[in-house]
């Protein structure tokens, strides 16, 4: 029976090309019109530690969450088998290398001791030996999965002979064994993989052909019983083309389309890929005609990054930076200067596990309150978050517009999940957005009152416009000169702070919080950012089981849509409002309480660094609804 949705994992050591294999598979599936979403889990390491890509593939929609167990687990090495054998579904396929069957758990030196102890206990519980063969037996007998052992070395040797290359060269195509095996299990035509390879390798025929030799040999080695076991029904997604990209890439695209022409950054995981993407597209032409250039400035630290971006913004350029928690910590003083001087600035903040270095390559939503309060003193700011890569695209442009319209710094709060997820979406249409530059003045002359008190939002002549303007981090008068006068202080303070009200009036609440649900919902999940997809999918699954819930997606935390959110919350019984977040404190719930006075008392939280999975959210919500618990802490995932 063909499936509407398939889940799979491809695992292998970091640096061995699993990511490339995943991107070829993604492209192949996209070519066939399937929606794909994949999460990349990896250590802070370049070579050798365990990494894996976890996919949801759908024939009916663009997937928005991940779940377990998987219908297919493809392992490049012993560590992948040990780490994930227990995650294969009944009837699902575990592809592994028969050459590794004798490998013992203790020999996997790259495995952290805590993981090893857990795996050891797991194997023991299944009553099998701590070897790859043991894990395979556990999958087969304990989980009723279908192990497919391939002789990786044999496949490669055969490919080597066919290609007439050295054994070193053929090793480059080793990952295509997984690709071929996956294709066989998914029941894909080899041509689909050829197309995927063509996308990934930009039509480089030699590389494509060589990989295809390995792919086809691997496909042929998969036994009949396993072929097509995870076959998807033909796609019913009505799309002619799709964008398949990571969150980092999509933010980069949106910044370019939205007019960012200056981006400063200091390398940090998981933010720098965005800046590197922009750098690769810094010369812009339309219809063969040059239309502009972007400066991507790699600075000596994040302090320089934010402050140089502020400098660029003063010249009337849309300027931005991208960072993660440790970098943002360094940027805070600059943020205050931008707020005080009413500088439009976009800070894309990808949260990762904190505090300190925390878990650099793992996700978390621990910086919400930090984003709201970072800096000494008071000033208006916008904090906007996005729930999926489509939202990310449009929100980035919205954030740029709001920054200029309201002359405030905007923090676009994303996370590692969003940064590294590779997902497909409709190609966003720039004609659906407008560039709003507010009161920017590009032609002027002579000294200007940059902080003219006649309006809360003053005309903003760019440095270089012909005007002469002054800025200072001290309290200033209308000319931007230092003033310690108490009456001026109040007027200038009020001018700035009044923008909070103006933003609250001008930004529709429905753009700041989105309610997904209908009249019959009798419980409410409240979440933000990457929680959106899994919350909506969990609700669908819960609905099928007779639980009718809704989801309140909080998007803008400053200015917070207090009345709108209050009205929604008040429709539900307090014991049936559940906050879902990737942190310990329930920071969004704290923000809700601060802004509305409403105290959320039920929580589903996860702070392992791994995303919330659909099945664990479904279970946790049920436990809360059944009164068995008020606070569920999720821990699934390796």
């Amino acid at each position, binding site marked *: 029976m063909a499936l509407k949705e398939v889940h799979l994992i491809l695992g292998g050591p970091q640096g061995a090309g699993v990511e490339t294999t995943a991107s070829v598979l993604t492209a192949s599936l996209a*070519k066939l019109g399937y929606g794909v979403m994949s999460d990349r889990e990896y250590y802070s390491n370049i070579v050798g530690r365990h990494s894996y890509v976890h996919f949801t593939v759908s024939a009916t929609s663009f997937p928005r969450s991940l779940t377990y167990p998987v219908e297919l687990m493809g392992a490049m090495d012993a560590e992948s088998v040990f780490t994930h054998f227990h995650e294969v579904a009944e009837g699902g396929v575990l592809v592994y290398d028969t050459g590794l069957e004798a490998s013992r758990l203790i020999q996997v030196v790259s495995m952290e001791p805590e993981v090893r102890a857990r795996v050891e206990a797991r194997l023991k519980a299944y009553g099998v030996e701590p070897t790859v063969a043991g894990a395979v037996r556990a999958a087969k007998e304990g989980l009723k999965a279908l192990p497919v052992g391939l002789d990786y070395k044999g496949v490669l040797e055969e490919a080597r002979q066919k290609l007439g290359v050295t054994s070193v060269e053929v090793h480059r195509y080793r990952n295509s064994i997984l690709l071929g095996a996956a294709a066989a299990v998914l029941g894909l035509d080899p041509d689909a993989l050829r197309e995927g390879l063509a996308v990934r390798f930009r039509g480089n025929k030699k590389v494509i052909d060589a990989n295809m030799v390995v792919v086809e040999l691997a496909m042929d080695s998969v036994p009949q019983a396993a072929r097509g076991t995870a076959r998807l029904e033909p796609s019913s997604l009505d799309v*002619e083309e799709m964008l398949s*990209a990571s969150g980092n890439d999509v933010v980069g695209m949106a910044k370019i389309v939205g007019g960012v022409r200056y981006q400063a950054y200091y390398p940090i995981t998981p933010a720098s890929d965005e800046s590197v993407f922009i750098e690769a597209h810094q010369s812009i032409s339309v219809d063969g005609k040059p239309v502009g250039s972007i400066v991507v400035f790699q600075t000596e630290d994040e*302090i*320089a990054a934010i402050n140089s971006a502020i400098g660029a913004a*003063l010249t009337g350029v849309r300027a931005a930076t991208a960072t993660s928690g440790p970098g943002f910590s360094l940027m805070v003083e600059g943020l205050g200067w931008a707020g005080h001087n009413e500088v439009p600035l976009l800070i894309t903040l990808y949260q990762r596990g904190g505090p300190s270095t925390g878990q650099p390559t793992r996700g978390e939503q621990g910086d919400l309150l930090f984003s709201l309060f970072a800096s000494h003193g008071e000033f208006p700011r916008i904090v906007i978050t996005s729930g999926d890569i489509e939202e990310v695209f449009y929100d980035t442009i919205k954030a740029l517009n709001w920054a200029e319209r309201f002359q405030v710094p905007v923090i676009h709060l994303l996370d590692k999940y969003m940064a590294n997820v590779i997902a497909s979406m409709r190609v966003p249409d720039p004609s659906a957005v407008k*560039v709003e530059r507010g009161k920017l003045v590009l032609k002027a002359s002579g000294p200007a009152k940059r902080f003219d008190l006649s309006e809360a939002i003053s005309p903003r002549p760019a440095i270089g416009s012909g005007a002469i303007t002054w800025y200072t*981090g001290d309290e200033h008068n209308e000319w931007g000169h230092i003033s310690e006068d108490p009456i001026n202080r109040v007027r200038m303070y009020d001018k700035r702070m009044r923008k909070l009200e103006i933003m609250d009036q001008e930004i529709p609440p429905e753009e700041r919080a989105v309610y997904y649900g209908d009249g019959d919902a009798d419980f409410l999940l409240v979440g933000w950012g990457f929680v959106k997809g899994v919350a909506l999918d969990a609700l669908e699954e819960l609905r099928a089981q007779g639980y009718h819930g809704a989801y309140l997606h909080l998007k803008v935390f400053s200015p917070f849509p207090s009345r709108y959110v209050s009205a929604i919350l008040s429709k539900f019984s307090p014991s049936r409002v559940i906050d879902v977040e990737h942190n310990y404190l329930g920071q969004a719930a704290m923000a809700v309480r601060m802004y509305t006075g409403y105290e959320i008392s039920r929580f589903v939280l996860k702070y392992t660094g791994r995303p919330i999975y659909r099945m664990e959210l479904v279970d946790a919500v049920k436990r809360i609804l059944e009164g068995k618990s008020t606070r569920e802490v999720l821990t699934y995932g390796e």
Partner: protein
Amino acid sequence: MASEAAYRTNVWVDWCPACGNFGILAAMQKALAELNIPPEKVVDISGIGCSGKTSHFLNVNGVHNLHGRSIPYAEGIKLANPDLTVIVNGGDGDLLGIGMAHFVALGRRNLDIKVIIHDNQVYGLTKGQASPTLRVGQKVKSMPLPNMQDWVNPITVALASGYTFVARAYALWVDDLKEILKMAIRHRGAAVIDVLQPCPTWNNIYTPDFYKQRLYRLDSDKGWDPFVRSPDPKEAAEKLSRAFERAQEWGDRIPIGIFYVNPYVESFADNVSKVNTFYESMPPAKNVIAREDGTPVIDLQAMRSMFRDYVIEVSRNNRRQAQSQ
């Protein structure tokens, strides 16, 4: 030549009487007037401390920013709009203490920014603590104990960092300073002028008398030639070495003047232009980002083409198959 008055604001200059900053301010105004640079084309960037107020006294664009961060502000402004003349006025504590990382980074980038160090060996506005240019063991009158940390030499740090114009001046010799400033502004690349400056309120060691007895002009030595005059790297290396050597001199005699100038090093803008095809003709500040109807200049077609590696066309066969199901 424009009038000096055109570069003055009506903000009262609130430095202590006889502060060396007055000389720097006057030299700035004279240099800009003599070079006839329109005030609206100039940006003065200043940090925190007494020197930070310079921006408010100059009738040019002023960005009085955070402690130590003037150079990043200046870099953002200059990179976004290369037409502007960008000058940093910062204290020794600001540029060589809290902002040292940026000071070094600007040198290695050789971006066309002029840095004036107000070097008075003390943190003036916080009442006279030792700055990074005060020597170990010295104790100015505001300090309870002698300095426990030694100095950094602004000239050698600048030379080592890659600045292509390195000079020292004395705040009270305004004409000398003005001439050096003019040369620095005309120089295409990162320039540093370390301006020795008496602080009459806190610094009772480095007084005008102290300097008067010791300062001498480098160019009083007829053989002193700090200018690299050919692209030959050997000449640059030799002149750099001599500058280093001369920069060690600090005792009975203290040299002021130009230590090193090398116009043959590519500026950061040159390097950006090499990889960013449209930067020179269309730097960020000259970009039009939206059409008249407000939509982005990058439309769907342009987006597809720019990001073609990420746009996947669904195979026709498959679409047909899906429709027929």
